[in-house]
């Protein structure tokens, strides 16, 4: 059975994605910082779904380690899903460069670093699938989270370019654009219920989109239309809004 690599496997969304793929019979490689914390998840996936699950130490912020990390994976994964992200605190990031640069590094630089390596390996093999979890926050900068949003905007553009390049090498790239999701990252935020997805919904969307080789998917389909409206507001009006 094919193997799926999950980058940033400790988040709620990643756990849901791992469960979904394992339940469909895929072997799972769980990559995260302090990967030993994921031992319960590893045993759970193996026992429930009779698959092989393995743990791998991976830190998105340590780009210098990415090459060794990826080449050490046995077997090389058929599908790579990049789930990690860091929301951070917008207010803090406005004056604290450490926070600001961490948001940029995790969501953009780190993701680009590891996916470059994965992409080149897939090009050499002439096959493979890459999925990146970006965010609708990247579609237009808003005052409430534009540092995170701009990093995700960069990531979205990267995925789009990567898709274009890899298409010619029979490698597929999927961009996933979730809106609000109930996770620990968003815990305590007053999210509007009809607009907010559960991690399991994201997992199902990602799974189906990979099978069908979709290019860009939104989680909760109407987010595509919401973002279309938000993007079409003229800038002279948009700048006056409190979003």
């Amino acid at each position, binding site marked *: 059975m094919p193997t799926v690599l999950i980058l940033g496997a*400790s988040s*709620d969304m990643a*756990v849901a994605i791992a469960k979904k793929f394992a339940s469909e019979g895929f072997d799972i490689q769980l990559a995260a910082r302090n990967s030993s914390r994921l031992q*319960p998840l590893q045993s*759970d996936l193996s*026992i*429930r779904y009779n698959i092989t699950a393995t743990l791998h130490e991976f830190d998105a912020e340590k780009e210098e380690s990415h090459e060794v990390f990826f080449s050490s994976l046995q077997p090389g994964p058929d599908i790579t899903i990049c789930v990690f992200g860091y929301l951070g605190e917008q207010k803090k990031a406005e004056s604290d460069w450490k926070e600001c640069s961490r948001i940029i590094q995790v969501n953009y630089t780190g993701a680009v670093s590891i996916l470059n390596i994965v992409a080149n390996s897939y090009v050499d093999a002439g096959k493979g699938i890459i999925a990146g979890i970006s965010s609708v926050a990247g579609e237009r900068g808003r005052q409430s989270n534009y540092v995170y949003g701009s990093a995700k905007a960069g990531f979205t553009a990267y995925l789009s370019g990567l898709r274009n390049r890899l298409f010619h090498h029979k490698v597929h790239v999927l961009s996933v654009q979730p809106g609000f999701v109930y996770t620990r990252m968003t*815990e305590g935020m007053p999210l509007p219920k009809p607009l907010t997805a559960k991690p399991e919904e994201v997992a199902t969307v990602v799974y189906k989109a990979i099978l069908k080789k979709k290019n860009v998917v939104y989680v909760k389909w109407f987010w595509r239309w919401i973002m279309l409206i938000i993007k079409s507001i003229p800038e002279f009006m948009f700048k006056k809004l409190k979003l």
Partner: protein
Amino acid sequence: MKKDIANWGNYPVMESDEQNFIMLDDMARYVRNTETFIPRGNGRCYGDASLAGNTVCTVKFDKILSFDAATGVFECQSGITLDQVLEVVVPKGWFLPVTPGTKFITIGGAIASDVHGKNHHIDGCFSHHVEEMDILLADGNIITCGPGLHTDLFEATCGGMGLTGVITRVRFRLKKIETSYIRQKQVKAANLEEVIRLFEKYKDYTYSVAWIDCLKKGKGFGRSILILGEHANLSDLDAKQQSAPLQLPKKKQITFPFNLPSWVLNRFTVKAFNFLYYGKNFKKEINNTVSYEPFFYPLDAILHWNRGYGRKGFIQYQFVVPMEAKQGLIEILQRISDKGLGSFLAVLKIFGSQDSLIGFPMEGYTLALDIPVRKGLFEILDELDRIVLQYGGRLYMSKDARMRPEVLKAGYQHLPQFLSIVKKYDPHGKIRSMQSDRLGLTSQVDTPVYTHANTTY
């Protein structure tokens, strides 16, 4: 996140900051730094246990840690529900050693309430099958306990309603099965005397329970259907079943879509239901082989069936009286029938002997019935409590939302010991629920925010 929570009886409702954890270290940090909280599983106890201003919810703490299909030893985090365990172990030829009437409870909850099943007279409570478990104490430390290892903590945790700490990891023994089917026998009993005779006659059956009509008076007083079962062997199955003897039952579920208005359930509709339910078994005795699902979990097929009791919720009243107190059982049944308290689900069972620190079962008769919350109900139940105590019985904390502290004290002889163990492991009384405060097991240090709980009926 703050939200209104309630247990299965939908009474009472309380605003709570419910915290979910996937990682043990995150949970331990929260527990250490939080002034007061109660552990909470899937919220399938009935009353006000596991309700508090801060709850440590375990439903996402649900990982399977090991499962030896050769020996049937299963190890998991506490938040996994019984249905998830069954999905993994049944196809490998194993079953839960003890299961209550719903599979939507967590393993942690099964221990905190020390649940019993239709096989109590043979296999005891759930905790009898636990080899060891980890408890996250109020100070953030974790202690492993079991029979023979920190025994005091183990005994106070089994049936202790979460007051010793958060159960985080459990290792227990499963029961070997040859097939996923149950050989079922249903016997009609014309009255209470007969059903008690039948219980005696069929006492060697692993599973036994009786549905009882609480409203019938006169000659048919206590008429019942005794339901007996054994795990079916391969030879009990027909050819089609034999081709996949350990098959999981198909998932068929419907959802109760809204709260029924409370007037729907009344003496007349319940009487009509009981008439039909008793009458549907045309023959005196029915023998058949059924999947484990309808045998153990008939009500799980209807999600949110508790909505049938209306928005005000319901009380499940469950007591046990000793074997020699049959007269007490009769008196209580008479009182229930006189007051028209009968419910769709009145269940009679005989417990085997058990001596535990704080667990509910003792050798004797146990009766459980659901009653919608309404004006005057609590006064009637207070009267029933007096009869239960008079005959040396007690009530089940997992079902309780209203008993008085004296009733608990009189029913549970080892309560002082239990409380001293709780104090030893939680000296500052951090772990508290609405129930433990109400029953005087913990002292209320703040004013909890009740939404409906202050309503007096």
